[in-house]
């Protein structure tokens, strides 16, 4: 089976004032469907840039990104927006919930934007996923009434509500204590298993890494290590 995502020779150069910063310096990476991949590395190593490029939030300066056999670089702006909308979801480090919407409304938002679902269908799907992340009782609360862990659960529910193929999570546990962080990763793991959703998440946290099927280490814009779960078990 062909991997869902294939990156070849991806470079990304940011132009900052008068100097240029090379965030990615030639990344080759393929990710199978249903994988749970952790991207690790120190700050500034290029993790977020890599996730942004996979998610089409950013374009590579050089190299190719193929999704399900299609070259993203050849897609028009409109096609990219559709690709992002239909296949990819994001989870952010600081949750980034919309503060004026309730838990259930935040979760419904991606469906609202897509305008493909009826009001009833949206509410049903959102309720189901909110229950699945364990927040059924808090559906009508606003983000300010939740703890950090609960907010991240909402963000996960929001990311999963449309059954995306790939969920990209940038440091999803960075703002959480270790116990809550583990709970969040376990939740992603469970969703990965039950829904076969592909998760690619960046993290610093070694506890969190343990749950991944595969750990890709990135430093100075290059992949320095790529370990499958089985290899790491051997290493341990």
């Amino acid at each position, binding site marked *: 089976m062909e991997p869902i995502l294939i990156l070849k020779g991806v470079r990304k150069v940011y132009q900052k004032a008068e100097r240029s910063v090379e965030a990615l310096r030639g990344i080759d990476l393929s990710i199978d469907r249903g994988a749970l991949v952790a991207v690790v590395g120190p700050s500034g190593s290029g993790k977020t840039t890599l996730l942004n490029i996979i998610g089409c939030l950013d374009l590579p300066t050089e190299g190719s990104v193929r999704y399900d056999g299609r070259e993203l670089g050849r897609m028009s702006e409109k096609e990219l927006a559709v690709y*992002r909308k239909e296949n990819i979801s994001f989870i952010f480090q*600081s949750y*980034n919930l*919309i503060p*004026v*919407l309730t838990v259930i*409304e935040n979760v419904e938002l991606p469906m609202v*934007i897509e305008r493909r679902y009826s009001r009833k269908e949206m509410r049903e799907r959102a309720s189901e996923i909110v229950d699945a992340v364990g927040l059924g009782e808090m559906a009508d609360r606003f983000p300010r009434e939740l703890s950090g862990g609960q907010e991240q659960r909402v963000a996960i529910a929001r990311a999963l509500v449309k059954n995306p193929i790939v969920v990209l999570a940038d440091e999803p546990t960075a703002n959480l204590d270790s116990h809550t962080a583990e709970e969040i990763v376990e939740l992603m793991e469970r969703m990965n298993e039950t829904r076969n959703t592909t998760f690619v998440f960046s993290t610093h946290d070694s506890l969190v890494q343990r749950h991944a099927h595969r750990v890709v280490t990135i430093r100075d814009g290059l992949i320095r290590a790529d370990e499958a779960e089985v290899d790491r078990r051997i290493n341990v």
Partner: protein
Amino acid sequence: MKEVFRIALRNVLRHKRRAFITAITMMVGIALFISFDSLMAGVDRMSIENMINLSHSSLKIFTKDYLAERDVYPLDYGIADPQAVAKRLGTDPLVKAVTTRTEFLGQLSDYRNVLPVRGIVINPEQDPKVFTLAKYTQGSFFGAGGADGADGTDASTGVNLEEVSNPIVLGSTLAQKFDLKLGDTILLSARTRYDSQNADEFTVIGLLTAFDPAVDNSAFLTYATANQFLDLENLVTEMDVKLVHRLNIDQTVRDANAVAASVKASDPTLTAQTFKELGRAYFDLMGTKRSITLAMVMIILLIAAVGIVNTVLMSVYARIREVGVLKALGFRRREVVWMFTLEGIFVGVFGSIMGAVLGAGLNYLLITRGIPLSFFGDSSIAAGLPFWGTMYGVWNPGTIIFALVFGVLIATVAAIIPARKAAKMTATDALRFV
């Protein structure tokens, strides 16, 4: 779309205080605009009504020859048959009253000083039906009753003003120059209709204070006196017409134009000038005044607009990451613009409605109570303009609607600027924004 609306509305409600303060700026601007416009319209109306009631009437009828030389008030061109003209006008439903007048140039003298004067010969029965000069007269206005009472005897002088042989009513400005009181005599000289010089002593039976320089510098006689003094033989050089009262000045102008046209059409020797033509200088000034008012209001609303820009800009900066999330979720650029613009519109609508309500309230007070000119400390504030006493406002629903629409429009334009700025950012830039 509904979601965009919901997010925008909830964001405004979430920052109530900020939104409220901005809306108050808007409110004050709009309320000031409505009140100021009302007051200006009120002053205009009062001025125009005073012009009509004191000197211009609704329209004046002359012979064409007289009008050509009116500057020197010649006694050569009388209206041939004023009774016929009056009779014809009497059948017009727009006409309320008609009177005849004859103006002449003369000189007043107290044997020491001499001053030129415009004399106005009036018909004491008909004149008060067209003009309201009696209301502003101390003493008597030829039996029409002055400010001091109707029995004819002046309380301060004991002179029976109704029984003097050569009565004259003087504008107070003139009277002051000669230090004249009721019952005093003054020498009036003028050229008669047949171009001989005549002079006679007249007794002041009324002092007229209308704050209108043209009136306050004139001397009034009756035809009974002037027929002898000027050999007038009931010569009528002008006819003054009062039309039915209209609340709307524009309607009054239309009425006057219609009657003027019918006068001109009925007799080719006659011509007519409406109060608008006679008071052209004031109407020109009115236009300028309106432009100045509009400019002032623009400045006030511009300040309010800066407030809106600031509010939306603060909202944008506080929520740039949110913009990133929405864009990452699939929000399109125009939806982001719309969301922030809506916030501005909500504030604008709220501020404008509050402004309209406050403006209407202030307007109500201006209409029912008015502002006495003494409130400004000096009753001569009118500075020669034909208004005095108390300034009243005028209801103008058009202004309130305009202010409402304009307020919302300003708010929309003011909000679009920062909203576009927010929408321009890419999702990654917005998410990276700290």
